[in-house]
């Protein structure tokens, strides 16, 4: 739908220290008010335009803090889109920025289509004529691509599950409709509140389950953000190369973002690793020396997995010890490389420092130990309470937001039933659930209800 409030991550997906989530539309301020808690009970919608505010983002359902943020408030029409705009500055990194986006989507915003901010700017008279063609091309090109990606994602379990759920809802809807349109038709069980409640509760439970697996699913989709650290010359680049060469590198869009950043992934025994590129490795080369233990900890904390590489042929150094300190409490695999060379390293000490973390000895030069490393990565990931074989991958922010909204709609339905609201009104929330799930599968034809009606029941004069 045009003219509703849209949201998207508007900074490049990378490891920047700061990322921005932008909202635009009539309800931008209202949504911001819902999720922002400022010092002294500050209300964003009452703040002067073009000001920035420190505060916390909270999940309004639980009142728990999600992120510490700076929020810019800009009242239309003096904004890029000429609508009310909210910009949330949060910590960089895939996880935190997605969490912020998710929060906005769950509270009434819709994920922006590709190029939609620009389109709005144009439609609201912000951009001149020469740009119009470009905007149209952008919409077409990006939409086609997003469609392909979306279609790819829709294969498999999630799609089947959502379709199944929608069919269930549709049958219930059809039953209610038959009661309404054919009130004298005696063959259909009258949809009672109790019956309706059973169906609604079941849908709620299924959606709940989907959301619970979504966090894990997201990691599977977007990759385990992985950092390789170690002193110069320990073999970090060799490790990267060997992982990339051994495994099929996947080139894909990062789902759930409007920025079509192409990233490299490697798939290690079913675990997608999003390895920091070589530039990243250079940056972390002397990370501890450069920025100190405390600050490097903050940077590394964004990573899901750290591969800490040591050199077997030289003794353990102060810097190595500092690296261990910096990654304490994180998911780390300790790799002792260059096993082909005479050992100068105090392996016992290393094991001590590694503690609970897995320890792998390799000789990347001779291609030894890589299997063990892969095994370690895979078991670290799957050993948790993730049952990889039995999960549905709800991967992308848009899907998660839609499922969340669908869940809210079904909760409204349940509440309405509890209050004894007439069935045909409860039906409104039930239909909304069906439509929201349809947006995931890209299948929202109203006619299908009528088809269902006539295939499920024998009606007519």
């Amino acid at each position: 739908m045009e003219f509703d409030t849209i949201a998207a991550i508007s900074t490049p997906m990378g490891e920047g220290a700061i990322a921005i989530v932008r909202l635009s539309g009539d309800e931008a301020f209202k949504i911001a008010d819902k999720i922002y808690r400022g010092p002294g009970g500050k209300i964003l919608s009452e703040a002067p335009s073009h000001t920035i505010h420190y505060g916390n983002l909270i999940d309004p359902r639980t009142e728990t803090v999600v992120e510490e943020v700076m929020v810019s408030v800009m009242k239309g029409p003096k904004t890029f889109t000429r609508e009310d705009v909210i910009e949330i500055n949060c910590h960089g990194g895939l996880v935190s920025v997605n969490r912020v986006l998710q929060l906005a989507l769950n509270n009434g915003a819709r994920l922006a289509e590709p190029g939609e901010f620009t389109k709005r700017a144009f439609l609201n008279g912000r951009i001149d004529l020469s740009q119009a063609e470009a905007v149209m091309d952008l919409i077409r090109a990006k939409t086609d691509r997003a469609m392909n990606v979306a279609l790819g994602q829709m294969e498999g379990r999630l799609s089947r599950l959502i379709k199944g759920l929608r069919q269930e809802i549709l049958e219930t809807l059809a039953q209610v409709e038959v009661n309404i349109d054919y009130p004298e038709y005696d063959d259909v069980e009258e949809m009672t509140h109790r019956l309706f409640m059973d169906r609604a509760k079941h849908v709620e439970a299924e959606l709940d389950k989907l959301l619970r697996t979504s966090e894990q699913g997201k990691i599977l989709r977007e990759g385990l953000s992985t950092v390789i650290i170690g002193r110069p010359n320990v073999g970090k680049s060799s490790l990267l190369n060997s992982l990339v060469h051994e495994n099929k590198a996947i080139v894909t869009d990062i789902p759930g973002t409007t920025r079509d950043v192409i990233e490299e992934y490697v798939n290690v025994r079913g675990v997608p690793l999003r390895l920091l590129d070589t530039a990243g490795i250079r940056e972390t080369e002397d990370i501890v020396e450069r920025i100190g233990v405390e600050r490097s900890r903050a940077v590394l904390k964004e990573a899901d997995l750290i591969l800490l590489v040591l050199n077997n042929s030289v003794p353990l150094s102060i810097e190595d010890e500092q690296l261990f300190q910096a990654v304490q409490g994180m998911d780390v695999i300790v790799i002792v490389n260059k096993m082909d060379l005479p050992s100068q390293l105090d392996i016992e000490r290393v094991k001590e420092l590694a503690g609970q973390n897995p320890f792998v000895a390799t000789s990347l030069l001779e291609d030894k130990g890589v299997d063990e490393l892969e095994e370690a990565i895979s078991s670290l990931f799957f050993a948790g309470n993730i049952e990889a074989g039995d999960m549905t991958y709800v991967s992308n922010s848009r899907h998660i937001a839609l499922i969340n909204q669908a869940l809210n709609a079904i909760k409204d339905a349940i509440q309405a039933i509890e209050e004894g609201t007439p069935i045909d009104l409860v039906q409104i929330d039930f239909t909304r659930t069906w439509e929201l799930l349809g947006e995931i599968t890209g299948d929202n034809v109203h006619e299908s209800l009528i088809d269902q009606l006539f295939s499920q029941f024998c009606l007519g004069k």
Partner: protein
Amino acid sequence: MPYEAGSYDVIVVGAGHAGVEAGLASARLGAKTLMLTINLDMVAFMPCNPSVGGPAKGIVVREIDALGGEMGRNIDKTHIQMRMLNTGKGPAVRALRAQADKFLYQQEMKRTIENEEKLDLVQGMVERLVMEDGSCKGVITQTGAVYRAKTVVITTGTFLRGEIILGELKYSSGPNNQQPSIKLSEHLEELGFEMVRFKTGTPPRVHSETIDYSKTEIQPGDDVPRAFSYETTKFITDQLPCWLTYTSEVTHQIIDDNLHRSPMYSGMIKGTGPRYCPSIEDKVVRFHDKPRHQIFLEPEGRNTHEVYVQGLSTSLPEDVQRQVLASIPGLENVQLMRAGYAIEYDSVVPTQLWPTLETKKVPNLYTAGQINGTSGYEEAAGQGLMAGINAALKALEKDELILSRSDAYIGVLIDDLVTKGTNEPYRLLTSRAEYRLLLRHDNADLRLTQKGYDIGLIKEDRYQRFTEKKEAIEKEMERIRSIIIKPAPEVQELIISKGGSELKDGIRASDLLKRPEMGYEHIQQLVPADYEISPEVSEQVEIQTKYEGYIEKSLQQVEKLKKMENKKIPENIDYDAITGLATEARQKLKQVRPLSVAQASRISGVNPADTSILLVYLEQGKIARINR
């Protein structure tokens, strides 16, 4: 030999349910109007079920009435029974249905037409249109009469190349053995209209005196007097009942055994039939494990013994129909009076119409009713009214009237037809309306009377009553919103007696009314108004208060729709010039030629990206014009 027979503002071809509304509306708007019918004795004839209204359809009748149409008033004067349906459900789906005395209905409608000052009712079969410069300027009848007019409305129902099929028998005919209209259909094809073949059917009629009613269940009308029209003050109290019986296993066996003789299954019928109105053979085949089907026995009028056997629509041979009837409890010895039959007919693919129901191909020509691919008297009447209004407005050089999907079921119906088309005879269902909570039976007048008044179909005195009602509703809403009910003992007592929980604090009367256990009468009891409040007003206050949250949500959606409806698409837009539209979308847009972006977005095959591109393109045009 052709001869000049007269000159009019508007000509309506056909006098069925669409035609009579079109003709009356046109004449009442001040246009000099001619109504032509093949047979003067068949004005407002009901060739199928003797009833008016029901879910969605009943609301259409109310809408027709609120706009100044005739159907509601006519059925109020001629019904044998009325019932409010869905009373146990929410306010949005309540619907009134009447059993008609179909003969009285016709007589009454004919008299109304004859009495209408600017309306001439004439017998004649139209064969061709008078065409000048590609526009329609009148009609020519079989007898050579040339009638000239500024606009023409065609409402030919199932008459266009109609063919009746009854068992192995198939013959050229209109409904109920009327003369079919063959040349007009050919002429429309010549003019380049795309036509499609549809099928519908009707059940047998039987003699009331030969029915054993003791084996059936009685279905009486409501005890409370009901009416469709907001103008009706005299209510019919002497009602006739209908009766319910069922098919038996024997029935199904007979049908199974004779399927090879059914034109539905032998391939004789090629037209597409409506799914919501299947024949009994269809029901038995498609739902084979269903042990029995309901059969309603409905009197066709007060002065006849003919009874309509609802649920038994069929085109099986007459001898099989007799066996089928005899297998139904209560009908063992029934006398068949007329056999059921199927009818195939031509209709115009409705995406060839503008939302005013004027054809895109031939200016000044309008079509309405079954010719547009719909089924049902109410759907026909709603379209007839709108086509008549728009044909007259055009003839009188006034602005057109288009109802939105958020205004009325009639708006939903017409938008569906002209935007999406239909591949079976179209019937209105409540589920087709996305804003059905707003399109209620009870508020049709509040939605549409203003529009009816603005164009001149609603008279001053009625409009006066309407504004008074509206003001009374607002006043009472305001009162219960501002008045606080305190937790006094008598208040608590009443709440508890209704199964609610005690008040902790004072509460607005309107908020107390929102509680499920409370009704408006309780509010009146606790904090009575010091002036009289009519039942119509209290009904509105109760519904609008109790369902405020849902109504508010629907209104927000309508708000968004309106924004898109306000993005108008110029009629002369060149879709080929818009780069970036998907091929399918471009084709569909060129075919449908939507008037607004909202309408464009509803066309199947036009996806959101195409809608966006269209918006951008339109905006671009605006900038270009400013720069020029």
